[in-house]
């Protein structure tokens, strides 16, 4: 197990999806389609291995209807793109708090080795 390079790999995988730009860490200015991973718990698995749980945040269009429709059409491509780097467990619509106010976003929870 090694986490080295995983953030970049997740960012690269996210960028392969249309209208998504992946970053290894949270960008300073958030635009719709921006996505980045945050490491969650590392749980001991078999042998010398750990299950890494990642939360990937993805900023949605800020119009509520557009955001809903955008997510509807991007769930499958996102799961496919992330498959080589993690097993997606959940998509959860959330609000990301910024200085400019809350932004519509989705939190993707996934596990990797």
């Amino acid at each position: 197990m090694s986490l080295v390079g995983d953030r970049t790999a997740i960012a690269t995988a996210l960028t392969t999806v249309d209208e998504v730009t992946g970053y290894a860490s949270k960008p300073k200015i958030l635009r719709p389609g921006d996505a980045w991973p945050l490491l969650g718990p590392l749980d001991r698995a078999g042998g010398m291995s750990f299950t890494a749980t990642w939360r990937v945040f993805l900023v949605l269009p800020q119009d509520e209807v557009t955001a809903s429709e955008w997510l509807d059409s991007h769930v499958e491509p996102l799961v496919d793109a992330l498959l080589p780097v993690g097993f997606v467990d959940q998509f959860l619509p959330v609000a990301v708090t910024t200085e400019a106010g809350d932004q519509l976003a989705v939190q993707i929870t996934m596990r990797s080795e």
Partner: protein
Amino acid sequence: MPAAAGAHIYRNASVEIDEVEYANQLTTARLVPDQPVQTMRTLDPTGTLQDVDTATWMFEISGLQINIAGGLAKALRDADGGELEIILQPKVGSAQATATFTVRALMPAFGGEQGNWLSSELSLPVVGQPVFGVSA
């Protein structure tokens, strides 16, 4: 202690059955051996003899029960008792481990429990031995 190389959370697999990819319908795809061992302990404590049988195999699958065209449940039902060619690759990509083998199709469940995914679970007998290889 160094981390274990090659450890993998099972996902991104390929399960081709008669040249149709069904990985997106399956949650389990596993070749399970049955290999009995017969041991004779002689009067000499150092003279223990062991006879290991040739393994026989079952192909365990579980996943969605899709009963329309394109569904594995329908394909198995249609092929009942017939032979199906399988290529199982636990991780897609080149230079990855593969197993190629033939199974006998069995009837899957039909129907299920209200409020739950329609699912089915089967252990299909493998004809002969799997051939283990590496993907191109």
